[in-house]
């Protein structure tokens, strides 16, 4: 596994901001606009990311569905996932997703970096 992070987020402004912030703090980042794009990337990637930053509400394939498929594919199943949720009541939306961490949107840069350092 590399030290890169895969950012899965449909909103282009949030996605770009996350990628920039991650790179500024020493984490190379790649991104996908929804769950299907993310799966596509992971299946073809020669080197897998060390962590996936996952939004939940996305068109085409949402975060929960992505996670379901990811966990069934042995090659990518073990990549840890950090969920980003827009909701105040975070745990309502992430039950059963088995995320290593759940951050509320927008995450503070410090908590984001702390979580990433723990897993990458």
């Amino acid at each position, binding site marked *: 596994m590399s030290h890169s992070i895969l950012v899965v987020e449909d*909103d282009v*402004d949030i996605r770009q*901001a996350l990628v920039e*912030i991650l790179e500024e*703090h020493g984490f190379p980042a790649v991104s996908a606009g929804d769950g299907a794009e993310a799966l596509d990337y992971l299946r073809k990637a020669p080197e897998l990311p060390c962590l996936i930053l996952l939004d939940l509400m996305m068109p085409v394939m949402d975060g929960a569905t992505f996670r379901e498929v990811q966990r069934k594919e042995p090659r990518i199943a073990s990549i840890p996932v950090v969920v980003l949720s*827009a909701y*105040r009541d975070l745990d*309502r939306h992430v039950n059963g997703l088995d995320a290593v961490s759940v951050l509320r949107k*927008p995450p503070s*840069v410090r908590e984001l970096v702390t979580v990433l350092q723990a897993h990458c």
Partner: protein
Amino acid sequence: MTSSPPQTEVPARPSASDGKAPRTSEERFRELVSSVKDYAIFMLDPSGRIESWNAGAERTKGYTADEIIGEHMSRFYTPEDLARGLPGTLLAQAQRDGRVESEGWRLRKDGTRFWADVVITAVVDDHGRLTGFAKVTRDLTDRLRAQEEQLRLAQAEEAVRLRDEFLSIAAHELRTPLSAVQLQLQGLLELPGGIDPRIRARVERACRSGDRLVTLVDTLLDVSRITTGSLTLVPGVFDLTAVVQEVVERYREHAVRAHSPVTVRSTGPLQGRWDRLRIEQVVTNILVNALKYASGTQVDIVLSGDESEVTIRMADGGPGIPESEWERIFRRFERAAPMRNFGGLGLGLYVARQIVEAHGGTIDLAPGRARGAEFVIRLPRSTAPGSAR
């Protein structure tokens, strides 16, 4: 089968001595018609002049028989219907088809209108010659009003539903770009290598405004969850005293700016099973209100509990809230103070009460205070997972 005694016709009541009791079946029928109260039933001559009148007609239209017999039936029609010749049209149709039915506004003697269902039947003799018309009119005004009321109610409900739906969509849509703005601002503040202190101060201020916007949008989202019944509670065991102290600590700076010292007294740890985030929200909403409306006065929070429930009392020394307003301020978009003096959506107390009630508790104002407002929140120690309505 047993044979029953032959049926005998019940003899007509003995004739009264005045000799007015009906004898023939036609007379009995006339009496029946004249006593009907729910329907105006009367006869017209071939030209439309009234020949008979019953109790229902008098009740519906307001004329006595003496006043109306001999008059033309067009008297009951509105000027608009007269202008388009409706009475003549109806009679012509009844004559042609044997019968005509129509609904519309008709006039009473006093000039008021009623919604009538009218059936006009042509009456002909053995030779097929028109001898007149039988007219039966029913006052359906109440039914029409009920239908209109139902329609208005349905329209009002639809408007409320659309508003709530819009609120939910708007809040969701606002939340995403707001997150992007906050991320960018935070990214600037956390740039490795630091940023110019003057820029930092400005970005920090922008961040604070962003935080306020997030709080406002989240409140709107809560309201839409409450109205759709999807505000779910996730209870866990925690110490209420510690949570209240944390909230107060979080608002310490805010309290200093408002010149309102905040004290917390408790009998000790108060364990219970509640939704921690939601209870924090309730305490925050009441505290923020106190700092806003009662700034410059002390805010005292007192916690106590017994085996089954805990009580949080939050009192300030501000202007207080008149008792007549106590129910109103817990409704949506209401506020204790005039809008022009204070900002906010008027949703804090509404959301607070919904959350407390979802926990099976109550939130009210304490009576009999000489000064300021005192909110009393009672929470049962244990809450089953459920949703607010």
